[in-house]
């Protein structure tokens, strides 16, 4: 049996996207505070609306669990006088002291008087509340005042039936909450038991799941279930009610991308599709109130959308007066980055690079160059100035109506892709080349002027650009030298390597040791890296593979210990008859086969061939002592092992493969 607890932090409207992380933080901070103060209990729920962060807990003790506090005194060797002095200072008699430890010391162990839970909470809650992390905070009571995401206007803090008295930013805690700004009362006395019901009667649905369900109920009949938008609306409302509106079909002449962007990003409406997938002239808006009986809200939203669509149509028409090609010179006035010049300069670099990349990959250089030349021109259009998130897409749409080649407009349209890990890479060869040229130019330029991402600071989204480069190379099967793409910038190469590891491990799910092994054998050609990784993944479960890997590791160690520098021809006459000579013959025979498979990029067959050598290697290590007494034999043996290792490590450095102990070859 313990006490229930309720905390409601009443705030002005908190940005929707910060609420869930804030709740997690509140839960963690409160639980830590309970534990640190020995108050027992546990957090049972955290909830939030835009105007309140709420935590509920149960089983709190009435007072702190008892604790014995030990104070260290002088060592016994300091003599009885020191002990008396210590006891006097602590206000006890010498007989109250105890002796512990070696060498022995005096100790005083005393029970700490437990404080009442309410008192502890009153002292700790302000720190719990202001300890919640928000990405951007403000002060409001004056310079130097407490910081929070938005001004705190009321606090409900109840332990059982009693208010936990506390004060924060001039707000004194109490038992009164506030309802919905329009639907509810301004001051509502609550108890822990009736809190949620009281809120609901005052127009506030506390549970995010219930709010979500109210919105989801309207997402039928062709409404696009946009999960991100749904999440936003759940935390933008205290009492969500969806309404359905319509717009004039004539606006459907505008590109779908523009219409949905206006609805989704600017108005937070769900768009609606016909059964065939085409856009329907309808939308679903979510109100933060309970009803729209006279249709006033619907009419208002329809009016706003109409104005927005009119704007878009106006931009579309005005923009057409000047074709993209004529806009390119205007890019001289658009800054790319202060030290990297204008978008015109970037365009010129991109076009040159696109042409070069196209020539190397067998794409049509003239198309790639044309697309790169026009790719950024939409930055000067009214449409992109208004809907910045449509950059590229707008350029592509304009290029299409302006009669550019299919490959060209598509390349412009898609050149910002992939926008995220979930997004696909550009769909055509030309688009991939243009996208690469754009991203590489940004990466090279930023690295050149030292704008390298650090920690969470990555203002030019270089990580995303690098990830895009990696994905386009691998998934687009573009055999381009990474070193050359990096223009000999070692830091950029290292940065890309980091993204390559991340991509193959975390996105593609290759084991980290496989990735290490393959990259250690070369990472200049990512298509090849992928092929080698897939071969390893395929061969790894076969019985010979891991023991073989263990043997390779052993060879590596032997060579390292012998400080073998490599080189030296193998003198076959010095090879011992038996296991050594047999291994050598096997090696000589396989070498040719492995080489042919590798040339054909059949890495799997190559690896299987290498693995077939395992019995001979095992026998060799069983029977032959590498460190032969005769220096010439020993040197020859090392040269042999060295050449074996080099020859077979072109696909992967097997010594990087982590092998379970019981799988290793017998010594």
């Amino acid at each position, binding site marked *: 049996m313990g006490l229930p607890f309720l905390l409601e932090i009443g705030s002005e409207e908190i940005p929707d996207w910060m609420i869930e992380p804030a709740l997690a933080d509140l839960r963690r901070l409160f639980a830590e505070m309970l534990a640190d103060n020995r108050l027992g209990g546990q957090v049972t729920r955290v909830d939030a609306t835009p105007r309140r962060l709420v935590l509920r807990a149960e089983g709190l003790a009435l007072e702190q669990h008892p604790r014995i506090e030990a104070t260290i005194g002088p060592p016994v060797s300091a003599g009885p006088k020191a002990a008396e002095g210590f006891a006097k200072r602590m206000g006890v008699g010498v007989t109250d002291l105890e002796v512990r430890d070696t060498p022995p010391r005096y100790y005083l162990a005393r029970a700490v008087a437990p404080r009442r839970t309410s008192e502890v909470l009153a002292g700790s809650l302000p720190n719990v509340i202001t300890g919640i992390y928000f990405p951007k905070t*403000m002060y409001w009571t004056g310079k130097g005042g407490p910081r929070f995401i938005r001004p705190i206007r009321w606090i409900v803090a109840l332990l059982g039936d009693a208010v936990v008295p506390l004060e924060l930013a001039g707000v004194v805690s109490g038992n009164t909450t506030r309802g919905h700004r329009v639907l509810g009362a301004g001051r509502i006395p609550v108890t822990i038991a009736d809190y949620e019901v009281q809120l609901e009667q005052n127009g506030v649905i506390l549970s995010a799941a219930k709010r979500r369900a109210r919105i989801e109920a309207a997402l039928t009949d062709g409404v696009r279930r946009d999960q991100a938008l749904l999440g936003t609306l759940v935390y933008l409302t205290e009492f969500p009610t969806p309404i359905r509106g319509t717009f004039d079909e004539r606006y459907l002449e505008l590109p779908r991308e523009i219409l949905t962007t206006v609805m989704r990003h600017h108005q937070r409406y769900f768009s609606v599709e016909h059964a065939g997938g085409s856009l329907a002239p309808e939308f679903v808006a979510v109100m933060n109130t309970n009803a729209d009986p006279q249709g006033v809200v619907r009419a208002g939203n329809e009016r706003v959308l109409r*104005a927005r669509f009119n704007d878009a149509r106006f931009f579309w028409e005005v923009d057409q007066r000047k074709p993209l090609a004529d806009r390119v010179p205007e890019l001289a*006035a658009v800054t790319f980055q202060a030290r990297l010049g204008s978008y015109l300069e970037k365009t010129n670099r991109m076009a040159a690079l696109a042409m070069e990349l196209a020539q190397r990959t067998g794409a049509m250089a003239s198309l790639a160059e044309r697309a790169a030349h026009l790719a950024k021109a939409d930055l000067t259009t009214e449409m992109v100035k208004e809907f910045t998130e449509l950059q590229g897409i707008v350029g592509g749409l304009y290029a299409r109506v302006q009669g550019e080649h299919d490959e060209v407009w598509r390349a412009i349209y898609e050149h910002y892709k992939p926008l995220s890990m979930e997004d696909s890479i550009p769909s055509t060869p030309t688009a991939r080349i243009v996208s690469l040229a754009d991203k590489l130019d940004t990466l090279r330029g930023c690295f050149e002027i030292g704008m390298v991402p650090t920690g969470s600071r990555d203002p030019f989204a270089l990580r995303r650009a690098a990830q895009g480069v990696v994905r386009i190379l691998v998934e687009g099967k573009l055999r381009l030298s990474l070193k050359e793409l990096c223009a000999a910038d070692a830091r950029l190469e290292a940065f890309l390597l980091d993204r390559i590891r991340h991509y193959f491990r975390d996105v593609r799910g290759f084991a980290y040791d496989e990735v290490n092994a393959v990259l250690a054998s070369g990472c200049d050609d990512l298509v090849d890296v992928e092929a080698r990784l897939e071969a390893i993944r395929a061969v790894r479960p076969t019985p010979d593979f891991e023991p073989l890997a263990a043997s390779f590791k052993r060879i590596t160690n032997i060579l390292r210990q012998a400080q073998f520098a490599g080189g030296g021809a193998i003198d076959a006459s010095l090879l011992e008859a038996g296991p050594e000579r047999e291994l050598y013959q096997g090696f000589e025979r396989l070498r040719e086969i492995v080489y042919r498979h590798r040339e054909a990029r059949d890495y799997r067959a190559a690896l299987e061939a290498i693995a077939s050598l395992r019995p001979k290697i095992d026998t060799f290590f069983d029977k032959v002592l590498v460190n032969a007494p005769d220096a010439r034999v020993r040197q020859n043996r090392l040269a042999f092992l060295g050449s074996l290792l080099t020859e077979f490590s072109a696909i992967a450095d097997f010594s990087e493969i982590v092998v379970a102990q019981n799988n290793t070859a017998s010594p």
Partner: protein
Amino acid sequence: MDTFQTTVARLKHFWAEWGCVVTEPYDVEVGAGTMAPETFLRVLGPRPWNVAYVQPSRRPADGRYGENPNRLYKHQQLQVILKPAPQDVLDLYLHSLAAIGIDLRKHDIKFEEDNWESPTLGAWGIGWQVMLDGLEITQFTYFQQCGGIDLDLVPAELTYGLERIVAFLQDKESIYDIEWARGVSYRDVRFADELQNSVYNFEFADVVALWQLLALHEKECQRLLEGYPAYEPKSRFPMLAAYDHVLKCSHLFNLLDSRGAISVTERVGLIARVRKLAIGVAQTWIEQQHPAPAEAAQEVA
């Protein structure tokens, strides 16, 4: 149905009744009500200050020759500064909507995150855009910094977009169809302004002359800033005049920008130049208005 001028009068009356000083628009071109000295300078320092004024705001690049029903070269804001922001500031704001006939029980109102920043003024704040039935009608900001200075008291800034609000109230598809006064439309009052200023800003403005004007205003402002330290008594020094030159620079910058006359290298540098002036004036203004105790004592002596 209220006319444009009646709605504006009701809002001004509401804030006057609450306790604001109501002033007429500032008479130097500005891009937003924030730039008028009634806001930019008065939010600095520890003195409370409540003010409301309509501010015509010129944004040359937004001109559309009077062709676009929702865009204006010069729109009008009702700017309200409450310093420090009262605890019930959002409720007060909702009451002001009721005062112009918006019955919130019939509408949908949301406060959506929208922070504000002006690099040129060294100013930023935290706040929302207020959405009424999907229409942004007000920008609400708690100022945090102005002229690069942390503010002693946090003011609330309410910026009502008057054309939008009235078009909404009068149910007009175009701003130009708003009834300004009985029988007089917004078009009657403002169309020529929009057309002619768009033509000037985009076609006629003499780039060389604008650059010269900007340099002159900058120089005059610098001269004043440099003259302040040696001048006594401080309270007479024309800092407000220096600030007018900052505003002129800012407006000229916008004109040159709409003319497409600012190159990449110039742009960054130019913003920094105007910012330097704005910050210089802000810091000097604080010192002038709130001298450090020692200096204050000296002045008395």
